[in-house]
């Protein structure tokens, strides 16, 4: 049941995607292709629907119109069992890290593993947990509780929890939000390492231009519910569009 797109098809393909909440039209016809092993950064101001977009890609929200295909699958058409199998291949790193407060770090990491991969011995589980923690450089935190960790450590553990299933696609929701500049650099490096090591295709949602420049092969800028410009960082920000320039200037002067 390993879903893989055909050679010509992009790993993530979004066509004319629309989503509204009541009278609030968040996405007004979004188109995007993300190629295999590519890091695509989606930039935009708060409340422009960036997180809504990736929540649709993982089936947490349903679109009102349009198509979202990931790994060759139309996400909205997947039923319960198919969606569970699909989600094993798609890692989602939440803005708030979303670590389970009542569980230790070990239990947090074991959780997706024991629930998705049956018949694993305790030795295999321990090995996978240790490897995932090694990948994010936090082996020493294994027996700690989430409340004992800093914001940056929580983010890294959140990423480790998604990596434990070795996903083909990674979706990062504001990975550097609320972190100090040094930790931001560490997280950016980690995103690049994940791409190298797991050959994962990623979408990184952010409004941090440093993160965009460091991690993104291409950048898509979301304005008024549509992508105003998609290209490399330099291509996008050389666009004379006033709204894009305003976004750039605000980020680098504040």
């Amino acid at each position, binding site marked *: 049941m390993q879903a893989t797109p055909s050679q010509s098809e992009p790993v993530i393909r979004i066509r004319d995607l629309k989503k509204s*909440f*009541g009278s609030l039209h968040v996405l007004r016809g979004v188109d995007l292709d993300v190629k295999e092993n590519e890091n695509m950064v989606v930039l935009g101001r708060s409340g422009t629907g960036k997180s809504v977009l990736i*929540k649709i890609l*993982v*089936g*947490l*929200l*349903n679109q009102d119109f349009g198509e979202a295909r990931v790994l060759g699958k139309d996400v909205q058409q997947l039923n319960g069992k198919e969606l*569970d*199998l699909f*989600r*094993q291949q*798609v890692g*989602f790193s*939440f*803005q*708030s890290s*979303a*670590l*389970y*407060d*009542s569980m230790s770090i070990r239990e947090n990491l074991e*959780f*997706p593993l024991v*629930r*998705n991969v049956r018949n694993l011995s305790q030795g295999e589980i321990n090995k996978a947990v240790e490897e995932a923690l090694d990948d994010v450089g936090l082996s020493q935190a294994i027996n700690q509780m989430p409340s004992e960790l800093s914001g940056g450590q929580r983010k890294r553990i959140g990423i480790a*929890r998604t990596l434990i299933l070795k996903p083909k696609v990674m979706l990062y929701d504001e990975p550097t939000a609320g972190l100090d500049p040094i930790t931001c650099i560490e997280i950016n490096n980690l995103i690049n390492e994940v791409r190298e090591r797991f050959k994962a295709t990623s979408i990184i949602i952010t409004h941090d231009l440093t993160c965009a420049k460091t991690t993104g092969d291409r950048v898509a800028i979301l304005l008024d519910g549509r992508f105003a410009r998609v290209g490399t960082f330099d291509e996008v920000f050389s666009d004379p569009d006033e709204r894009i320039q305003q976004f750039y200037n605000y980020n680098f002067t504040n």
Partner: protein
Amino acid sequence: MQSDVNKSASPSSNKPFLTRRIDSFFATITDVASFNARFFRELVLPPYEFKEIVRQCYEVGYRSLLLISVTGFITGIVFTNQSRPSLAEFGATSWLPKLIAIAIIRALGPLVTALIAAGKVGSSIGAELGSMNVTEQIDAMEVSGTDPFKFLVVSRVIATSFTIPLLTMYTIFVALIGAYINVNVNEQTSFPSFIQEVFGAITYLDIFASVIKSFVFGYTIGMVGCYKGYHSSKGTEGVGKAANSSVVTAMFLVFMEELLSLQIVSALRAS
């Protein structure tokens, strides 16, 4: 998918106030009914979260045990003490064990346990699930390939439904111990004589009704806590409201159910 439901549930703001309130009331009733229906559907469908159910049973019992011990004991002593003067007027203090047994087993035991559990366990479930909702832990569970409803809601409601009847039996036992100490000190009644009087006064129907009633109370407390927490609005204020509203709603429903069970058991006793 709950975010969709929350955001689309708000009634249209251009309707008159009363119409909006009526719409909102029926929308809530429908939502609660579908939440309960989903519980029964998920309850029978595999996979079964046995480990989580056992963990929740332990949490519910362990969290409430000390408070229930103290409250039950004090209830026994106070009720005995307050009943004595009325019986003494007729020289009928020997009826105290019977009166106490009937009151504690039929009403006080289940009610005191349910109210303590609503305050202690119901609020805790509401706050925990509310907090998980706010911090995207429920979404994280869903993308981890786990049905959060089954893992969080079904396990907790089963745990409260089966643990609260056990806690009720324990409360009754502790309250009767408190009552015995009071009776022994004041009337010098021996333990065998007290026990004989207690069991002479009650019937199987009393015990059966008490257990069934506690089961319903437990289901109500668990379900209300889970519903409020699962549907809490985003933000820390939403978590506080979920916890508070879990307690208030559960206590109100427990009293309503107590009233209903009184009518049913009275009818059964008369027949």
